[in-house]
C-alpha cells in the first residue's frame, strides 16, 4: 500500500510533465495538472496514515525513507501545490488571454512546474543525502526558467542571479555531503548506502564530530542560500518580484521549506555526534540575522511583491530561531510556523497576482481602495497580512508565541563560539541574555508588523483610483484563498488530531527520539 503511494508520488508529476509537453489545449493542461496534484495529495494522505500508524519506513529498496517529518513536509507540498493549481486555472488563462505569454509556452510552463514539483517530492522522500542534494539542485534548474518566464530584462537578471547564487550555494552543500560521506566511510565502509539516513542515524554517534561540524557548516550555508537566510538571501527579493504569482507561491510556500527540511535532516545526524548547542547556535544566529535584516528592509519597501519576499526571509528567520532554540516547544513552534507561513505566504502571492492583474502595477503607491475594487482579494491580502504579522486568530500567532516563549525560557543554546582555536565562549541561556534576545525578537516583530500592515492597509482601504474596474466576480481562483484562510483561522484555535500527531512525531524525531 505505501509502496503504491510512494510510486504515485514520484510518477504522477513525471507523467504529468511528460504529458504537458504534448497536449496543446490549456483546459487539458489544467486538467492534467489538477489530476496529478490531487493524486499527489491522496498519496500523501495515505503515507501520513501509514507513518502515524506504524512509524517510519523505507521503500523501493532503501531509496525512499519516510517518517513523520517528511510526511509533514509532503503535506505542505501537497496542500500548497493543490492551491496553486487551482489558482493557476484562472491566472494563466488570463495571462494568455492578455497576451503576456504565448499559448504554446504554456506547455513549457507546465512541464517545468511538474519537474519542479517532482524534484521537491524527491528531495523530501529521498533516503540518501546525496540524492536529496541532486533533487534540490534540480529544483534550481527547473525554477530558473520559471522565474524568468516573462522574458523581460528584469526577469532575466533575476533569473541569472538566482541561478548563479543558488548553484554556488548548492555546490557548497555538495561539499558538505562529501564530507559527511567522508566521515561515514570509517564507520560504514565504502558502501553505496553510506549516505542513507537510515544507515547514518544509528551509527551517527560514532562519526567524527569535527568532520560533521565542517559538513554542517557547508550544508547550512549551501541550503541556507536556498532558504534565503541572511546573508545568503540576496537573490530572493528579485526572484520573487519577477516570477509569475503561482510560481512565487510555490517558491515561497514550499521550496524554502524543503530546503529547511534538508538542513534539519542533516542536523539530526550531526546532533548525535556534536552537542545540539552547536547546530542550534548556528541556526539561531542565521535566524536572528534574517529576522533583524528583513524587519528593517520591510520598512522601505514600495513594491508589494518585494514586501512579501522580505517577509518570507523574516519568517524563515523566525522558524530558524525556533529550531535553533530547540526543545519540544521551540521545535514544535518552528515546524508549525513553517506550515502557517506556507499557507499565509502563498495566499499573499495569490492576492498579489490578482492585484497585479487589476492594477497593472507592483508599486504600492498605485494600489488603493482594494476593499472596493476587489473585495475578495482585499480580504485575502488583509488576512495574509494579519497572519504574517502573527495576529490572532491566525495560527501564526500561536506558533510565533511558542517560539518566543521557548526563546525566553531556554535562551539560545550557548557555546557555539568555542572553537578549536579556543575562541571566546559565551552562553546565551541565562535569564537576562535570553530576555535581551527576547526583547530583540519583540522589537523586530513590532517593526515588521508596522511595516507590513502600513503598506497593506494603505492598499486595502481608501477609494480606488480612476479607471479601475470595481467589483470582483467569484472564480475558481478564489477557492484556495478561502480554504487557506479558513485553515489559518482554524489551526489558530485547534489542530486536527492527525496534523497534531504529525507535528508531535516530527518534533520527537528532531529531538533525537
Amino acid at each position, binding site marked *: 500500500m505505501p509502496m503504491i503511494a510512494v510510486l504515485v508520488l514520484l510518477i504522477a508529476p513525471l507523467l504529468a510533465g511528460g504529458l504537458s509537453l504534448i497536449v496543446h489545449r490549456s483546459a487539458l493542461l489544467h486538467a492534467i495538472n489538477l489530476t496529478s496534484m490531487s493524486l499527489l495529495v491522496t498519496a500523501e494522505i495515505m503515507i501520513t496514515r501509514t507513518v502515524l500508524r506504524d512509524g517510519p519506513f523505507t521503500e523501493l529498496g532503501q531509496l525512499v525513507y519516510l517518517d513523520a517529518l517528511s510526511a509533514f513536509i509532503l503535506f505542505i507540498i501537497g496542500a500548497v501545490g493543490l492551491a496553486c493549481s487551482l489558482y493557476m486555472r484562472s491566472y494563466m488563462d488570463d495571462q494568455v488571454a492578455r497576451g503576456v505569454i504565448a499559448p504554446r509556452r504554456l506547455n513549457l510552463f507546465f512541464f517545468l512546474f511538474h519537474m519542479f514539483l517532482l524534484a521537491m517530492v524527491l528531495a523530501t522522500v529521498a533516503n*540518501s543525502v*546525496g*540524492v536529496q*542534494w*541532486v533533487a534540490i*539542485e*534540480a529544483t*534550481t*534548474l527547473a525554477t*530558473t*526558467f520559471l522565474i*524568468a518566464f516573462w*522574458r523581460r*530584462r*528584469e526577469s*532575466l*537578471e*533575476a*533569473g*541569472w*542571479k538566482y*541561478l*548563479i547564487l543558488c*548553484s*554556488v550555494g548548492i*555546490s*557548497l552543500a*555538495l*561539499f558538505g*555531503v*562529501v564530507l559527511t*560521506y*567522508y*566521515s561515514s*566511510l*570509517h564507520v560504514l565502509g*565504502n558502501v*553505496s*548506502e*553510506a*549516505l542513507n539516513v537510515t544507515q547514518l542515524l544509528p551509527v551517527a554517534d560514532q562519526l*567524527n564530530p*569535527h*568532520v560533521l561540524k*565542517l559538513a554542517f557548516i557547508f550544508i547550512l550555508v549551501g541550503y541556507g542560500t536556498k532558504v534565503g537566510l541572511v546573508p545568503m538571501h540576496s537573490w530572493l*527579493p*528579485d526572484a520573487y*518580484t*519577477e516570477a509569475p504569482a503561482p510560481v512565487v507561491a510555490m517558491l515561497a510556500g514550499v521550496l524554502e521549506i524543503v530546503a529547511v527540511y534538508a538542513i534539519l535532516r542533516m542536523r539530526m545526524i550531526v546532533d548525535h555526534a556534536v552537542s545540539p548547542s552547536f547546530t542550534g547556535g548556528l541556526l539561531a544566529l542565521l535566524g536572528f540575522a534574517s529576522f533583524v535584516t528583513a524587519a528593517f*528592509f520591510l520598512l*522601505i519597501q514600495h513594491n508589494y511583491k518585494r514586501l512579501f519576499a522580505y517577509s518570507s526571509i523574516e519568517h524563515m528567520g523566525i522558524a530558524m530561531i525556533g529550531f535553533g532554540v530547540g526543545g519540544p516547544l521551540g521545535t514544535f513552534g518552528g515546524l508549525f510556523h513553517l506550515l502557517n507561513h506556507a499557507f499565509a505566504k502563498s495566499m499573499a502571492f495569490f492576492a498579489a497576482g490578482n492585484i497585479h492583474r487589476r492594477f497593472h502595477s507592483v508599486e504600492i503607491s498605485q494600489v488603493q481602495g482594494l476593499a472596493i475594487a476587489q473585495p475578495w482579494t482585499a480580504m485575502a491580502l488583509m488576512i495574509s497580512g494579519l497572519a504574517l504579522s502573527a495576529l490572532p486568530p491566525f495560527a501564526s500567532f500561536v506558533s510565533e508565541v511558542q517560539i518566543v516563549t521557548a526563546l525566553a525560557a531556554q535562551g539560545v543554546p550557548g557555546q557555539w563560539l568555542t572553537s*578549536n582555536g579556543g575562541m571566546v565562549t559565551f552562553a546565551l541561556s541565562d535569564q537576562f541574555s535570553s530576555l535581551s534576545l527576547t526583547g530583540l525578537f519583540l522589537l523586530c516583530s513590532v517593526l515588521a508588523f508596522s511595516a507590513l500592515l502600513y503598506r497593506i492597509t494603505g492598499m486595502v482601504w481608501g477609494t480606488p483610483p480612476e479607471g479601475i474596474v470595481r467589483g470582483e466576480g467569484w472564480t475558481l481562483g478564489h477557492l484556495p484563498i478561502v480554504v487557506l484562510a479558513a485553515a489559518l483561522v482554524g489551526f489558530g484555535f485547534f489542530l486536527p488530531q492527525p496534523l497534531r500527531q504529525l507535528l508531535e512525531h516530527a518534533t520527537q524525531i528532531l529531538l533525537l527520539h
Partner: protein
Amino acid sequence: MQISPHIGSQLVDLCSALLLLTCFAIVAQRRLSACVDLFALQSAFLVLTAALVAFLTGNPHIYIAAALTGVIKVVIIPRVLKKVIERLNVKRELVMNVNVPAGLLICGALVMLAFFITQPIIPLGFLLTRDSLAIALAIVLIGFFTMIARQKAVSQLVGFLVMENGLFLGATAATYGMPLIVELGVFFDVLIAALIAGIYTNRLQDAFDNVDTNHLTTLKE
C-alpha cells in the same frame, strides 16, 4: 602490475597539486578562451587523478566517473563555452574586481585556510589521499573567489566549473568516489547547469547587449 601505496599516494598528491596549479593559472589568466582551455586542462588532470585512484584502489565505478568527467568537462562544456565566447566576441576580461597579483595573494591565503581547516581531519583519510581533501577545498574556495573576482558572465561560469572540479576531486580522492547514483546525478546536474547558463548568457547578450554582469543592477533597493 602493483605500485606501493606510498608511491601511489605521491602520485595522487602530484596530480592534485597540478589541479591546484591550474587554478592559479586561471586566476592569473585574462583571456577568456585561454581560461576555458585551462579549465579543460584542469578537467583533464582531474580525469587523470580519478583514473589513478581507480587504478590504485581498483574499484570500477570510479572509472565510470572519470570517463564521464572526460566527456563532459573536457569535451562538451569547453565546446559550449567557446561557442558562447565566439558569439559574444568577448576576447579579454578588461576590468576585474580584483587585480591579478592581489588575486593570487588571496588565493594563496585561501589555500592556507583550506589546509588549516582540514588539518585536524586529514588523519582520517586513506593512506592514498593524504592531502587531496585540503586541495579539493582549496580549489573550491579559489573557484568561488574567481566568480567574485571576474565580471564577465563566462568567466564566472568557469569559476563555477572550477568549484565543481574541486568537489569532484574531493569526492574521488578523499572518499574514493560517491555512491554511483549520486555521481550520476551530480554530473547530470552540472551538465544541465552549464547548458542553462550558456543559454542565459545568450539571452543576457540579447537583452543587455553585453555580458558584463556589473550591468545587472536594475533590481535593488
